[in-house]
């Protein structure tokens, strides 16, 4: 029985150690791919930086600001025009008088 327990435990350990190597190998492949992708995208971004002129950049910023401000103004006016209205009580709009009352048990 001691041998069964020992062999059993060693097999569990061996299987999980094997999985560590598999996962490490998988991780190595994927981190390498990821690093390569990041480096490639950094290079592209760098190239794009040079491609865009300063004037174009300024135009883009101004347009974005303009859109943002106009959007802000519209929302602001919307908020201001909504007023809370309180209606005074009247028997004409009362639900109590409009619905049939349940009979009272005596």
């Amino acid at each position, binding site marked *: *029985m001691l041998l069964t327990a020992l062999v059993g435990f060693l*097999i569990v*350990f061996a299987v*999980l150690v094997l999985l*560590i190597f598999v*996962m490490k190998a998988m991780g190595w492949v994927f981190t390498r791919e990821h690093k390569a992708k990041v480096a490639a995208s950094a290079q592209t971004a760098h190239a794009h930086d040079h491609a865009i002129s300063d004037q174009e950049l300024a135009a883009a910023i101004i347009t974005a600001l303009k859109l943002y401000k106009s959007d802000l103004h519209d929302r602001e006016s919307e908020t201001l025009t909504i007023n809370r209205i309180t209606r005074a009580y009247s028997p004409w709009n009362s639900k109590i008088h409009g619905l049939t009352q349940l009979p009272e048990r005596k």
Partner: protein
Amino acid sequence: MSALLQSSNFIVESLGKFVETAGFTAFFAEGGYKYLIMIAVACFLLWLAIKKQFEPLLLLPIAFGMLLTNLPGAEMFHSDLFAGGKVHWLELYQKGGLIDYLYLGVKLGIYPCLIFVGVGSMTDFGPLIANPKSFLLGAAAQIGIFATFLGAYALGFSPNECGSIGIIGGADGPTSIFLTAKLAPELLGPIAIAAYSYMALVPVIQPPIMKALTTEKERKIRMSQLRQVSKTEKIIFPVVITIIISLLLPSAAPLVGCLMLGNLMKECGVVDRLSKTVQNELMNIVVIFLGISVGATATAESFLNFQTLFILALGIIAFSCGSAGGVLLAKLMNLFVPEGKKINPLIGSAGVSAVPMAARVSQTVGQQYDKSNFLLMHAMGPNVAGVVGSAVAAGILLAFLG
């Protein structure tokens, strides 16, 4: 006059029959007190589930199943239909009731596998993929299974019973039920109750062991940030693990395969409806069926004996050994790694697979010594490795003893 006498005789006879068939009379028969004890135990478990909220989702149906099976005369469950470790189909067809049919799911190993599909679809293996060394901690925590296996053998249990008792140390309910239904079905009730009770008691059992085996300096160790895991890696992981483990240990294939199927459903992102179904509807339905039928196996004859007490005692030893094994291996690993890559030994105890409770305990104990130290994600690695580890251990025990 004679008609009146006849009718009074009929009434007396009917009342006599009614009293004879009523379950209450069984309490006064020989050994009838055992039913009362079992009803009290079932009510106690119901109290634990409802009032103390100890694993209520499972303990409540288990306790109610136990209550139903111990109501004399009701005959809700017929253990003789499954005597000798096999299903007597003809008798089952003739006198089987609802719980007998539900029990088939346990007996044939269907429910634990379906629960594993749900567990897989709720588990994030990201921390394990990011830090594969966590597999070592998950493996070390399985020492509790094999240590208790030997302990049970020393106490006179048969090898098959030893395997079923030892698996409690894996702290994995479905795995315990799966293995016990195959190896020692007569112990299913006590083992399921021990496994789920100790899982609920993780926050009580583990912290003293963790504190006793570590120094304050070790408890304050900060671990480096885990790397980001891509979606492709998460999709490949379940497929690779299923292939490797199933080829190495075919007996572990049902559990590992189902666990990884659930995980693949979650990670691939194209079967959201299926993933949500196995996480919620399927899981809940199976838990109800499993709980009631496992509880129903805890009859007075099978539960009220010294074996049950030994199982409960061995279960806690198994659980404690598993927790200690993970912590000690983490300390051992620290001897061989440079300063910046040290492991906080508190995450070792999460190697027992009570997901995510054991990982939460590591986080809570760690924060008692350093409030800004977040160990949860690091502990999730050994925690999910423990699920895989206990399924592998169950497969090995099944291959050796089954």
